[in-house]
């Protein structure tokens, strides 16, 4: 019940972008003293003319990125998600989304990646904030494959987009023949009893939870909802109809993210199914590493398996 471990998605992002940028001088990376955490030091060394540094100034980072994008540059603005989507939110709203300047905003070390550095460095609000802003897509890759494919797809993406990445090495989730398309969820495990709809770095624990549940006679579907907007409504509705309950899993506040997005869609489609949102509760976040925080709040194979059994009202003797 272990998965082969890959690299941190941020490393794959930086490597893929370097490969693409070597063929296209219009690809530019913007950093706010963040090239180290963004794994972009090799990019800066290989293509110094294609990396623009602005120092620790996220508002400026986004505003300048928007100006560059308005001239046709393919700009990736890279900075910790916590600062980008809070301090620079007005620039994202106005200069990028409202003006339709197609900046690729890349929030790194997202969610609780920074662990014990605390809430200043956590981004548990970004889905909620960006979902309420018109004209910005939201992509959250679960593993190295999804990250690589997302970066490739974003080169020609004509509108603003937010790409959210974490810093921990991620298990490999997908067989080689998997197809990635923005806005199309990927089924990671087939199942008919219950469905985990997970996003980003919570897909791996959901997949392991499904494997655990299988040994207990429960068949769990796992969906990687890598695109929060545009949302794959069909994948959700199909899961709600084909299985007996939905558990959403996200490295985000339980308010305003994937879970409430799914709840709204289900209700407006008159689908009342057993339903549970797993995320970071509305409280002072516990201190710990990312994995400790995940475990504390039940975003773990054991925690999610227990939530599934609870929702299905099945007791399992250990």
């Amino acid at each position, binding site marked *: 019940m272990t998965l082969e471990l890959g690299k941190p998605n941020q490393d794959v992002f930086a490597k893929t972008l370097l490969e693409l940028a070597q063929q296209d001088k219009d690809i530019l990376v913007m950093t706010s003293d963040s090239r180290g955490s963004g794994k972009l030091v090799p990019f800066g060394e290989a293509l110094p*003319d294609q990396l*623009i540094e*602005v*120092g620790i*100034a996220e*508002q*400026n980072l*986004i*505003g*300048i*990125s*928007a*100006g*560059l*994008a*308005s*001239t*046709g*540059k393919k700009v990736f603005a890279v900075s910790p998600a916590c600062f980008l989507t809070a301090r620079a939110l*007005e*620039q994202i709203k*106005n*200069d990028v989304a*409202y*003006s*339709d*300047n197609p900046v690729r905003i890349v929030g790194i070390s997202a969610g609780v990646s920074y662990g014990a550095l605390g809430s200043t460095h956590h981004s548990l609000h970004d889905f909620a904030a960006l979902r309420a802003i018109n004209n910005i897509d939201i992509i959250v890759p679960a593993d190295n494959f999804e990250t690589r494919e997302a970066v490739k797809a974003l080169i020609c993406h004509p509108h603003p987009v937010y790409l959210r990445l974490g810093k921990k090495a991620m298990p490999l989730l997908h067989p080689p023949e998997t197809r990635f398309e923005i806005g199309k969820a990927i089924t990671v495990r087939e199942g008919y009893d219950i469905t985990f709809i997970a996003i980003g770095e919570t897909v791996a624990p959901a997949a392991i939870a499904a494997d655990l549940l299988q040994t207990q006679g429960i068949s769990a579907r796992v969906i990687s909802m890598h695109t929060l907007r545009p949302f794959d409504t069909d994948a959700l509705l199909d899961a709600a109809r084909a299985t007996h309950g939905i558990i959403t899993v996200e490295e985000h506040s339980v308010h305003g993210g994937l879970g409430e997005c799914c709840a709204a869609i289900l209700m407006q489609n008159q689908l009342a199914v057993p339903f549970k949102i797993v995320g970071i509760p509305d409280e002072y976040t516990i201190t710990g590493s990312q994995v400790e925080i995940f475990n504390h709040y039940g975003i773990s194979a054991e925690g999610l398996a227990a939530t599934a059994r609870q929702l299905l009202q099945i007791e399992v003797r250990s």
Partner: protein
Amino acid sequence: MDLTELQLKSIEYRKKTLEIIKHSGAGHTAGSLSCLDILNVLYNHVLRLSPETFNSPDRDRYIQSKGHSVEALYVVLADQGFFPSAELSTLNRYRSHFIGHPTRKVPGIEQNTGALGHGLSLAVGTAIAGKKDGRAYRVFTLLGDGELAEGSSWEASMTAAHYKLDNLVVIIDRNTLQITGRTEEVNGLEPLDDKFRAFGYAVRHVDGNDLSALQTVFDQLPFETGKPNLVLAHTVKGKGISFMEDVRAWHHKVPNDDEFALAMQELDQARARLLEGTTL
């Protein structure tokens, strides 16, 4: 265009600006009047830009950071032929593209602005792109003085100097008033030129309501190789209408019928004086 023609344009622009504000029942009256002469000189003398070249990658760019003075910009863009002047009668009306701050849905507008402290970063990004691509275009941005309390303007200024953006022209509409009162009483800005110099700009002072002086200063661009340009334009809020000049209350006050008639009368008299002076 000679000076008298420019002067006549400023009078016509003022009339039209007040007319559309009056008609729509809303607008930033005094700030539009303070920056109107700057816009006049930019669009009729400085900018390499027209409706025909607006999609050219080599065009000069103008980004209005003080977006609330959009009525003056709409009037000038209409005069430049970006759209029929008659469309301005829809200002602020249901479903109109002509809203209270610039949007790209209006032909001739480069960026959606209105939240203060955004234009300079946008202009810096556009100027960096010009340098990278070896294009000769220049990027102009107009900031209000009250807006300078926004820290983002200073972040962008640091970057402008760091990347030696001598293709960037920052114009400050220094009318010394903001909605609450004098800038120096709200949150003091002075010594403003020292601050800009310290941030790496080549600074020029100009009377921002003197068309001839504005022409002269813009003709000197770039002021210094390797430095971003800063034009500190000393203006009068409400310029051109005696009872609006330097009066805080006119920030976004709409003239009533009597005030509007009086303002038109003053502008007509100014026009008559100008034509009389020309013929003598």
